[in-house]
């Protein structure tokens, strides 16, 4: 199973890209661990995770068509 993860704002400076594809991540905890191992600076970053355009506060299982995004603090306006 492959998951597309989208990055926004200052996270794109860390990741160097707006989108990353990950395999073998069955839930959001596994996804975070994989990302933090690959991009250590993510450990110091403030963000929330959105699954299917809704911010989640607890671990969530991921299906292959899930739209996952890491959102740093909003600064519109």
């Amino acid at each position, binding site marked *: 199973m492959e998951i597309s993860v989208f990055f*926004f704002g*200052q996270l794109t400076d860390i990741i160097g890209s707006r989108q990353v594809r990950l395999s073998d991540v069955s839930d959001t905890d596994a996804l975070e661990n994989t990302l933090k191992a690959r991009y250590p600076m993510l450990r110091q970053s403030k963000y929330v995770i*959105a699954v299917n*355009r809704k911010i989640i506060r607890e671990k969530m299982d991921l299906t292959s068509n899930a739209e996952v*995004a890491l959102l740093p603090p*909003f*600064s*519109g*306006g």
Partner: protein
Amino acid sequence: MKRLNKLIFFNQGAIPATRIADIIQHHGSDISIGAYSIFLGQVRADLAGNDQVSAISYTAYEDMALEKMEAIGDAIFEKYAITGMEVIHSLGEVATGEICLCVVLTAAHRKAAMDACSETVELIKSELPIWGKEHLTKEGHQWKINTTNGKHHT
């Protein structure tokens, strides 16, 4: 109050003043409106150390922003006796002195329009997935930080 239109429009680059006049003009036919409360955000030449902001580039998680704006609209239409809401937010680069946000609330009476406008602006800044990258005059960039009390940023 049934809403038929999209609440938020993204505009590539700065929002022209004429766009705001167009919004006002097209509400002119509604004789139940007594008050418009309009908020405009303009890019300010903020100091950044010994450098200065020259422009802001906005990016958004557009699909999520559209959905979230609908939820904000539902809450505001539920809470206040308003007749209309229209929001325009810039994407891409907006230079200092240019407008990046336009929020228009209409109502029969001024208090509902003003209170709803103020609350909508706060929610746009705190809940919409939009990010501002501040370009500096001398070099580089920094990421815009929003505060909720309106003290540090517009």
